[in-house]
């Protein structure tokens, strides 16, 4: 997955990195909808290609939008049943998963088999989730001095991060903090990509 594509998929989801638990719910949505919509689109593409009536352009886009939005609605209904609090806190951002996964999928080359498409979608979902989690841990730990997870048994679901809880960097908890973290994450990814490219070109040079 390229750096640009990872950033493209992170941008609409970055608002849900104010707490770690929100980023985990968002990640679950992105992985599920991305995986299932890729499988559904791939199956339809392969079946329509064999009948020589392959849809083009706008019809294809409409079909993809319909699949991803229905799957997103199913995820929203499931989330509402499992955790109404999480559903309410995700607000307008859970429906946006529908267009987010579509934008990512459209920029990927077609895979040779259904299994490869599915594993590619799963990989993209996991990459997005890992990036969201890193940004969320950084923002919540520094911005609020806590890390919010799922409560279980005696564990109330919140880890206190030392003295930061009394003197947090509140600016990181705001919308600007999300953009700032994403900007520096993008810079780090760009630096790694540039270093890898230069190392590869050095290796190709004849001695």
């Amino acid at each position, binding site marked *: 997955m390229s750096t*640009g594509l990872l*950033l*493209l998929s992170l*941008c*609409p989801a*970055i*608002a849900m990195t104010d707490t770690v638990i929100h980023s985990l719910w968002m990640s679950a949505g992105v992985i599920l909808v991305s995986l299932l919509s890729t499988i559904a689109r791939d199956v339809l593409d392969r079946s329509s290609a064999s009948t020589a009536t392959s849809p083009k352009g*706008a019809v294809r*886009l*409409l079909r993809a*939008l*319909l699949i*991803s*939005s*229905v799957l*997103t*609605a199913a995820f*929203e*209904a499931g989330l509402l049943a499992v955790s109404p609090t999480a559903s309410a806190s995700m*607000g*307008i951002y859970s*429906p*946006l998963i*529908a*267009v*987010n996964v*579509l*934008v990512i999928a*459209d920029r990927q080359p077609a895979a040779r088999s259904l299994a490869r498409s599915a594993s590619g979608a799963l990989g993209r979902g996991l990459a997005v989730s890992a990036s969201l989690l890193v940004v969320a841990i950084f923002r919540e730990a520094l911005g609020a001095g806590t890390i919010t997870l799922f409560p279980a048994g005696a564990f109330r679901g919140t880890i206190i991060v030392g003295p930061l809880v009394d003197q947090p960097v509140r*600016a990181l908890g*705001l*919308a*600007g*903090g*999300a*953009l*700032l973290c*994403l*900007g*520096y994450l*993008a*810079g*780090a990814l*760009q*630096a790694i990509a*540039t270093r890898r490219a230069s190392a590869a070109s050095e290796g190709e040079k004849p001695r």
Partner: protein
Amino acid sequence: MSWEATLLTFALIDNVILSRLLGVDPYGMPGSLRSAAAAGGLFTILMAASAVAGSVLETQVLAPFGLEALRTPAFVLLVAAFAAALHGLAARRAPAMLEEAGVSLGRTATSTAVLGVVLIASRGGLDAGRALLAGLGAGAGFFLVTSMMTAIRLRLEVEPVPRALRGFPLQLVTAALMAYAFLAFDRGFLARFLGR
């Protein structure tokens, strides 16, 4: 809330890019100020029209018939339909503007900014008139911030900046600083500005 307050709230206080974090696109950075203005104009029209239609759909169809579960597919398809209609209209009436904007049908139909405005208007229970103002305000805010970010990026292109931050990372850091600056636009500012 008065009509001026609705417009200013959606343009400055609850800005779609800087407050809601929607519409930031690493592949969609306008190349020039003219391009940013053309794209901003198209998105403003699309946001206003979609917000009105979304509000009507919510209040006249989805809520009365208990079809709230279909809200996401309905709004996604609604935005796509309006994007297609706007592209068709612009291609016939203002092809130069469409070319200058450099936005494809796929990008407008899957815009998180437009869908976000529709969702905010419908979930906020805004009637059609308020939704129109919300859409226009959000579009104006989108237009303003995109133009400002493009102008800053064009200036920074000739400045010495760390290689790792060149391009989209610096654009995000710029947006972050603008988001902090826009915190000055709050309810207190609105009350003072409108003299209430």
